[in-house]
């Protein structure tokens, strides 16, 4: 009888231990989907200065500065600039100006200065420098006064 009680107790203990061990091996599964994303944050606008011959008004000229934008993307998007359509010029400037927007990036993607669309295939963050140059041909010159232009930087 004593042997029976000992055997029964041992069997019960093993059964309990086995039950407790099963309860610790359940898996919890997490799923997540990241879709193609792009974030642009304009940090600074640009400044254009005029060249000594008064035929160039550009952020490349001495004293000028590029606009800066931070870009964060998952990749699978493209970056581009639009032709400049919105400008203001002083009334004294009645001659045509050719505006050329360009950009370059440093960071996860290194893009040399360009005006064409560029594919961003890998994820990462970049600092985008946006330049704008206005030029006049022939004998035309920039007039004194305030100029303003808007560059559209697109991520799509």
């Amino acid at each position, binding site marked *: 009888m004593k042997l029976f009680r000992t055997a029964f107790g041992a069997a019960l203990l093993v059964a309990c231990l086995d039950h407790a061990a099963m309860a610790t091996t359940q898996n919890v599964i997490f799923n997540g989907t990241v879709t193609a994303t792009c974030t*642009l944050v304009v940090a600074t*606008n640009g400044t254009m200065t005029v060249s000594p011959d008064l035929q160039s008004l550009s952020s490349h000229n001495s004293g000028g500065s590029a606009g800066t*934008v931070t870009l964060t993307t998952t990749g699978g998007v493209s970056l581009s600039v639009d032709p400049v359509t919105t400008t203001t010029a002083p009334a004294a400037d009645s001659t045509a100006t050719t505006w050329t927007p360009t950009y370059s990036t440093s960071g996860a993607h290194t893009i040399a200065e360009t005006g064409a669309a560029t594919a961003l295939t890998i994820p990462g963050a970049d600092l985008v420098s946006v330049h704008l140059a206005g030029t006049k041909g022939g004998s035309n010159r920039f007039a004194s006064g305030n100029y303003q232009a*808007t*560059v559209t930087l697109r991520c799509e």
Partner: protein
Amino acid sequence: MKYARILATALAVGLPTIAAEAQSMSPMRGEVNSFTDVFAVRVFPANPYDQKIKVEIHVYDQDFQPVNARIAPGTFQLAAQASRPVLVVVPFDGAAERKVRICTESIPFPNQQTQIRAQICGKFFGHRKF
């Protein structure tokens, strides 16, 4: 009422569940099946800045010509780090399928010599099912 039901069905069929996180616009890609002469897309523009901004939503075709779509709301203020849903209803204009860009544009800071307009565009493909 019938139109609303059809529109809801088109949305449910065409788009997966979308999370509205702090992004400039989500989703940026999508394919929608519709049983009417329009298709609908819900996008979530977000403000990544630490200040309130004014946001405009525009719809363009593949050649960046404006599309006469219904956008609700088309222009709005967005609080810092906030996001909100925008419903865009695009007409097929008789075509069996249509590709459009839905763009979120931030309004540039005023009084700067060279202003930068940030534009995030998503590409969406609508299929008309008969």
